[in-house]
């Protein structure tokens, strides 16, 4: 079997008495969408933070293409190829859509410490930014200040920024949160598009989307992975039914 793109081994994280991750291990293979589901407070966001290096794990290790990320902070993990989106859209409100994507694109090109030439002066960067905006359905919104975007547009702008990083792995934290059925549908097809670029660890509450998109699903409850398998295996897993899915499915 080929080496996983991302692998977490026995990650632990406590906040006082709260166990946010309890011996969490999971793998993400190339071409795969691996969904992470679980009730609120299960530790999904914490796990993404541990993978992305924003939160230090108490113990355990993360590997990217077989390389340990031990001791690397969020900046270096992003450079290594981990791109993530946040549960609450994380963009730069004062910048335009175009500038937001450019920031990401130039960061990926390691051209941020350039002080004199105008950011908007490089034609090929501008074209790249426009392409990314087009891909997430924000064509023509280049000059709009991000603060003025609708909730759904912000979600898509963040995805464009993440896409512009050309990462090795996507970590997406509830990209459909707070969107109506229409918005959810749009993001769903967008995620289908993103999977062509890199494998994805997807935290999502929308079960229709999860079962439609995911190749593999892990279920997190109280910081523990209680089940992991294909969508069909998860559907018929009695522990999952009991702990989480209830009778919805």
């Amino acid at each position, binding site marked *: 079997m080929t080496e996983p793109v991302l692998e977490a081994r026995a990650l632990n994280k406590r906040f006082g008495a709260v166990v946010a991750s309890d011996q969490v291990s999971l793998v993400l293979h190339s071409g795969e969408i691996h969904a992470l589901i679980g009730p609120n407070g299960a530790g999904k966001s914490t796990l993404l933070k541990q993978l*992305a290096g*924003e939160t230090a794990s108490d113990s355990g290790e993360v590997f990217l293409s077989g390389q340990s990320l031990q001791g690397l*902070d*969020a*900046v*270096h993990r*992003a*450079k290594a190829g981990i*791109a*993530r989106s*946040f549960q609450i859209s*994380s*963009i*730069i*409100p*004062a*910048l335009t859509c175009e*500038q937001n994507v*450019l*920031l*990401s694109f*130039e*960061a*990926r090109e390691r*051209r*941020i*410490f*350039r*002080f*004199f*030439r*105008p*950011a*908007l002066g490089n034609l090929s960067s501008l074209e790249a930014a426009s392409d990314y905006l087009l891909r997430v359905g924000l064509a023509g919104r280049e000059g709009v200040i991000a603060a003025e975007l609708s909730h759904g547009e912000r979600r898509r702008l963040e995805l464009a*920024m993440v896409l512009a*990083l050309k990462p090795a792995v996507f970590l997406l934290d509830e990209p459909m949160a707070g969107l109506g059925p229409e918005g959810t549908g749009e993001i769903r097809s967008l995620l289908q598009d993103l999977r062509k670029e890199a494998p994805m660890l997807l935290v999502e509450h929308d079960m229709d989307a999860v079962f439609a998109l995911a190749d593999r699903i892990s279920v997190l409850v109280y910081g523990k992975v209680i089940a992991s398998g294909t969508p069909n295996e998860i559907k018929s897993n009695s522990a999952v039914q009991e702990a989480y899915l209830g009778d919805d499915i």
Partner: protein
Amino acid sequence: MLRSNLVNIAVIVLLVAYAVSGEMFDAPYNITLATKVAILGMAGAGLNLALGYCGLISFGHAAFFGLGGYVAGILAVHAFNHQPIFLGWSGTNQMIAIWVFALLATGLLALLIGLLSLRTSGVYFIMITLAFAQMLYYFAISWPSYGGEDGLSTYLRNGFPGLNTMDGMSFFMVCLAWLVFVLWLSSRIINSRFGLAMQAVRENPVRLAGLGVSPFRVKLTVFVLSGMITGIAGALYTDLNRFVSPSVLSWHMSGEIMILVIIGGVATLSGPVAGAMLFIFLEQWLGGLTEFWQFWLGLMLLLVVLFARGGIIGTLNRWRAS
């Protein structure tokens, strides 16, 4: 874009016109005031890069203003007295050399303070920057060789090739050239790729880190640049007054620079200059009417913070835009 440029140009034209009127009507004091505006505006422009564009609320920029001032004062006094400072070298009375030393000294100081303070944020950052500036202030007060509490007189202005710097208008032109250069440089930086990262640090450092750019490195770079600009303004201030004293290092000075940035317009290019104009105007005009002019200044600051986001220039830009 174009509108705010017009406002910027108008501010500079107003400043030049005021100085020229001083020359025409033989009112040298007006030239002095215009020079002071240019210098304080430049100090504010330095702070504005950190505070306005990058969200680094430094309450210790007097450290840079004052250090620049003391570098100019100390080098000039040694040159005047032919008294060696170091390895037989007895200072200099050339502005260009003094600026180089002021840039080096304030750059290093900003690097040091930045390394020690930029991992913190919010109130902690405000307090640490304040503490550093106060340390320098007390150091200057208690260092007798350079005048201690009484300050240091430099007698003459330092020289600039081809100019009689003792002539008010000539010295004003030097300060104006610096101011315009600093504003030009600021606008280049703000609009550069690095400028995008500066604004990202202010608004969302976690996102920036997630893009693989270290917010700390961006902050440190901005802080050093900001300190150097304010430091040069301090060196010019010593030349304006031909005198430097610990007051340029005190927290009042930090507060003054911050107030003129806020009143003039945080994160607007010419905001600090407009703020300096208003500040000097109030000091001169209200200060002549009442001893309590600073009360009115405080009230104005409060009104700006509460109602006029973006200060004078921000309001003008919005007003012209609508």
